[in-house]
């Protein structure tokens, strides 16, 4: 039996969670104050995931870059692959919040969506 100490990142409470494991099997989760903490701890010890937030190039927009995110969290070890694909991509104004900018980012099956609206550059 081994224990892993985690800090829950689901909300600003930052609960300290102790996961007791036997091999790859989770025996118990303690210290969380809500159900999300339990789910997080069980996923985090086996396959950690993160939402990636960054910006993507916009052409013809009132600004040059628009903020975006992976619509759902991606495996932690894919973060830099996701960044590389977003870095090489671009989109065209106008952009609305929630527009899909990349359908399947870096083979994760997760789309990248805009998190801000960008209008068309009136001078173009």
């Amino acid at each position, binding site marked *: 039996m081994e224990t892993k100490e985690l*800090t*829950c*990142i*689901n*909300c*600003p409470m*930052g609960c*300290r969670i102790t996961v007791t494991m036997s091999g790859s099997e989770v025996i118990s989760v303690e210290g969380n104050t809500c159900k999300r903490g339990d789910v997080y701890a069980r996923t985090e010890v086996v396959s950690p995931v*993160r*939402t*990636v*937030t*960054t*910006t993507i*190039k916009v052409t013809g927009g009132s*600004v*040059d*870059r628009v*903020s975006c*995110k992976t619509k759902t969290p991606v495996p*932690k070890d894919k*973060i*830099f692959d996701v*960044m590389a694909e977003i870095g090489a991509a671009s989109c065209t104004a106008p952009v609305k*919040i929630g527009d899909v900018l990349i359908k399947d980012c870096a083979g994760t099956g997760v789309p990248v969506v805009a*998190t*801000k*609206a960008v209008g068309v550059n009136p001078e173009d």
Partner: protein
Amino acid sequence: MRADIVVIGGGPAGLAAAISAARFDPSLNVLILERDNELGGILNQCIHNGFGLHTFNEELTGPEYASRFEEQLDGLGINYMLNTMVLNVSSGSVTAVNSNEGVFTVSCGAIVLCMGCRERPRGALNIPGLRPAGVFTAGTAQRLVNIEGYMPGREVVILGSGDIGLIMARRMTLEGAIVKAVCELMPYSGGLKRNIVQCLDDFDIPLILSHTVIDIKGKERVTSVVIAKVDSNSKPIPGTEQEIACDTLLLSCGLIPENELSRAADIKINPATNGPVVNESFETSVPGIFACGNVLHVHDLVDYVSEESSRAGKSAARYVSSSNTSVGAEIRISTGSGVRYTVPSIVRPDELDSDLIIRFRSTGVFKDSYIDVSFNGPKKIHRRKQIITPGEMEQVILKKEDLLNISGDICVAISES
């Protein structure tokens, strides 16, 4: 020009205050004055997620969170002016300037101060060394990367472990920079725990506690910084110096509420928060002028800014709508041991329309301790907390009926078990 309520600043506090004022009384004419070219304030550059868990029960990025508020303005008939700088505030009058109107004055029934805060710059930190390019506040770097699309540097040291510093450690790393260390003067981080996990631990960025920058080297551009361990009086300890090669130093060393307008209006300022002294209605010492958000006290969560500001906006609307100026008994809220400040610091129980939320910060880190609230004698609240840190705001809620018949101060304190 005339408005019933003028809201100064269109960031998260101003948006929430304006919306709740207009909701309280749809006949009121509410005007937001914003100096930037868009609404949303600092949320526009906070492209990371984690906003809105309390308000919307989902995890949003900063721009998404702001848009949830902005899209309500038109329906409520709230007016706003962008690129407009407020120059002066006094009871019933706001003077501002922009390129279309020149200098103009708005007469009004109430004012809500929502100017937010500023970062503490290098000049305020007295860091010795040369004056090369490459020293930025973390928020300036955040704006450069996230809005302008420029990388401020490639090899980075961050001084201060406040949330913006931690967020920027991750952001710079994602964009290909090498973050060599985050140095923190205090023996604990000033940032949220989850940011330490997500922004530093995830990328193996070292957090060096009880250290500060004692020298900045480089003639044209930063070439290195020297850090040293500090003693319990924050003085560098000779012999502990280490030089770290880098081209960029980011500063995340605290935020200061931006109260030039408040001071000029002779509004009483609390030296512990650098924000106005307010009562339960978020009214300052000048009647009809209210304050909320980071101009009042620096928050770690925007959700709390929105919640607090909507109460302030409602109070401002009630002030304008009602001719009732009666004020009941006034009770002071005092800070006991371990508590640096409380907001509000005055409560008039008769004016409460629901329970009283007192928010406060601790003076240091307390483990396995208790939050105590007493009304001039026995403890009314004695609540155990696993951990209390200055970086995370605490709150206690007092019932209105419990406050109606008390005499003397309310004292909020932290006691160790």
